């Protein structure tokens, strides 16, 4: 039986990226860069507010390069996505792919809205509340985030799993989730016993949480686009 790898490509065929791992690493790197820059901006704004606030030349000189780096990261992400689409030859998305893309954009937009809310809060009270730390949150904000993660995210996820994913994506997602579980089940106790032995600092829930998230994300995308 003929193997598809032995056959020449047809018009409109998807050509997998030369090195999917490199491609995914670039995307993850740019996303981490964006998150890092957002944190830096939030920190600078908080410190600036503590010292009276106001926009002056010094503030702009510090903030502008970081904003430029963030714009470069966003541009880089768009270029990577556009290049992937071009490599596919046929840029027409199927119905499921279009729905999948729209849900992802909606999630990214939600993340942006949360970032803006946090930035606005940091302007008001002089400290920058963060989603991923153990500092206090205003009750209204805490309820808002809890509703978002506890109610809206499960609904979006349920819809995404049932309507937007196909079996390849579901399989890739399951594998990513399984690996993330192992990171949690193995990584957390290892860190815990090493802390008890005085070899590591106290286990940090946010770090473990982020490690599981990134593990799931990387494996999921790698299995989908390899």
């Amino acid at each position, binding site marked *: *039986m*003929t*193997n*598809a*790898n032995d*056959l020449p490509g*047809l*018009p*409109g*065929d*998807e050509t*997998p990226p030369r090195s999917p791992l490199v491609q995914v690493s670039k995307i993850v790197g740019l996303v981490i860069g964006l998150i890092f820059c957002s944190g830096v901006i939030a920190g600078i704004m908080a410190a600036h507010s503590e010292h009276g606030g106001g926009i002056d030349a010094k503030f702009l000189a510090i903030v502008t390069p970081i904003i430029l780096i963030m714009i470069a990261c966003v541009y880089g992400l768009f270029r990577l996505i556009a290049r992937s689409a071009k490599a*596919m030859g*046929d840029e*027409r*998305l*199927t*119905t*499921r*792919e279009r729905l*999948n893309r729209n849900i992802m954009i909606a999630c990214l937009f939600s993340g942006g809205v949360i970032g803006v809310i946090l930035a606005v809060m940091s302007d008001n009270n002089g400290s920058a509340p963060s989603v991923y730390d153990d500092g206090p949150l205003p009750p209204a904000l805490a309820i808002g985030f809890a509703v978002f993660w506890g109610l809206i995210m499960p609904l979006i996820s349920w819809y995404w799993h049932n309507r937007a994913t*196909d*079996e*390849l*994506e579901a*399989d890739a997602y399951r594998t990513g989730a399984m690996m993330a579980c192992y990171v949690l089940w193995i990584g957390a106790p290892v860190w815990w016993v090493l802390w008890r032995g005085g070899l590591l600092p106290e286990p940090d829930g946010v770090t473990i949480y982020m490690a599981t998230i990134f593990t799931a994300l990387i494996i999921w995308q790698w299995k*989908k*686009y*390899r």
Partner: protein
Amino acid sequence: MKNTLKVLRAMNNWSQADLAERLDVSRQAVNAIETGKYDPSLPLAFKIARLFGQNIEEIFDDECE
């Protein structure tokens, strides 16, 4: 798993997007099946077989692994 999906697709002059739309999956899924990186579920394999009017074993060959 080796298969003749790409040949069948070429005979129908369909792009991966055309076939993906007919099977209600993504282009990545069609590509992964064609290149043997992903084995379709039984329901999807039946769907593919019905679409091309063939038996599953005429399209997929598990003895070549």
